[in-house]
């Protein structure tokens, strides 16, 4: 599904954000990406989203090399993914229903399918009774569930969750990851960046640890042979 081969991302003054990273994420996998600040987690997500250009190496998604995607094709590429943000990124003036529906409008869905699909997706995240509420009337956990509903409403093949539990209380955190796990059960690949080790420990998913721009550990046993610091986590 996602094959990353020897990618390097070098910023000005020879700062290596990612240095020779290779990974392979299978379709339907759930992957936690962990690491300290500055380890390269954000850069990895930015490169997958093609928000930044790779200095060298390649990223293949479903066999297609994303370095060859043209600017005008980017929106269509990003529609294959759903993004969940740490700060929810909901539009305050819109209701829960509208926040989810507008993701469908962007891809050109008709009103009939929006009216059918949005309530279904909201029921998946247990928000069926709150579709007319505004984000300011919701708790942190509920807001994140709206974000999740928006991310999955267009049936993406990949979900990228950037610290989705960072702004909510611990009890809600498990609930959010459980929802992501449920989505994953239906075959959606989930890449979740997190600092929250308690969540990571609780779920039996693959863990990739980044450190100073390199893969320090990968529980799937994918070994970066060029790195001496690699450790295999079982």
């Amino acid at each position, binding site marked *: 599904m996602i094959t990353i081969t020897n990618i390097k991302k070098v910023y000005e003054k020879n700062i290596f954000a990612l240095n020779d990273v290779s990974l392979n994420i299978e379709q339907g996998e759930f992957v936690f990406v962990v690491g300290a600040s500055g380890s390269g987690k*954000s850069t990895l*997500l*930015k490169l997958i*989203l093609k*928000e930044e250009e790779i200095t060298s190496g390649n990223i293949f998604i479903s066999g297609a090399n994303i370095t060859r995607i043209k600017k005008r094709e980017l*929106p*269509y*590429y*990003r*529609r294959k993914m759903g*993004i969940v*943000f740490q700060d929810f*990124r909901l*539009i305050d003036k819109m209701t829960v229903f509208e926040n989810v529906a507008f*993701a469908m409008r*962007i*891809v050109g869905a008709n009103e009939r399918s929006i009216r059918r699909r949005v309530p279904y997706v909201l029921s998946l995240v247990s928000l069926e009774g709150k579709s007319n509420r505004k984000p300011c009337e919701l708790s942190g956990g509920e807001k994140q569930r709206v974000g999740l509903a*928006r991310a999955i409403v*267009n049936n993406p093949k990949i979900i990228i969750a*950037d610290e989705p539990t960072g702004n909510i209380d611990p009890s809600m955190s498990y609930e959010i990851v459980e929802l992501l796990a449920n989505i994953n059960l239906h075959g959606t690949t989930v890449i979740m960046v997190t600092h929250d080790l308690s969540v990571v420990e609780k779920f039996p998913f693959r863990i990739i640890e980044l450190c100073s721009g390199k893969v320090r550990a990968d529980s799937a046993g994918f070994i970066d042979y060029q790195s001496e610091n690699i450790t295999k986590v079982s």
Partner: protein
Amino acid sequence: MSLASVMVMICCLLLTGATFIVAENIKFILKNIEGQNSITVYLFKDADLEKVKLGINNIENISSYDFYSKEEAIKDYEGMLGERVSGFFKGESNPLPDAFHVSFSDLSQYSATISEIMKIEGVDTTSDRSEIAEKLSNLKHIFAAISFWIVISLGAVSLLIISNTIRIAMHNRRFEINILRSIGATNNFIRLPFAIEGVAIGTFSATLSFFALRIIYSWFVKIANNTIPFNILPFEKFSNQMLIMFISMGLILGLIGGLVTIGKYLKKEMSEVVVW
């Protein structure tokens, strides 16, 4: 900020409209002056009047002419000379020549027309007003150039103001735009509401400016008709033209201002989908 841009755009359109009105009025006044503009063509004493008439008729640039006999001329001098003095110059002893008052259709061909008149048999000389004609014609050209640059400058100012408004609007909505881009919205999808905003600002300002100018100008016409020694055009003479001009300017400036700004903004500041 939208209110500020509407106000600035109204000011720009009012100034553009005022320039247009002044230009139209100058054109109108010049046309009147041109119409009235005539020279006197003096004839030799033994000139054949019919031949001279025929010669004048053959010149295209002459819109009209009147015969001005030497008897009429001496009558006109009576007031200045007094009846006793002018009495000596009546009949055979009248020293003044017969003449024609000739009006031109196009002042820019003044010199060429004078040359043609001088070629007519029986014509002695003409009263030369070429300098005045040239000045009037130059004034028209100068004002046309000035109006052109005023309209261009004000257009540029309006463009800048609309562009700034859209930029601020986009900056205020950058959060929303980030979300749109992350979900896969195309640039056109993001552009559309801002382009509509630009067009709305432009059209709304144009409509308000039109009615404001109409009120101001009508008030000015009322005052001017009692104070200025010549007629000026009523607003109705160019109201349709003005409305079309304002709406087109508003639409075009709004749309261009909006689209250019959004294009630049999307390229420079909105390149990041997710800000970590």
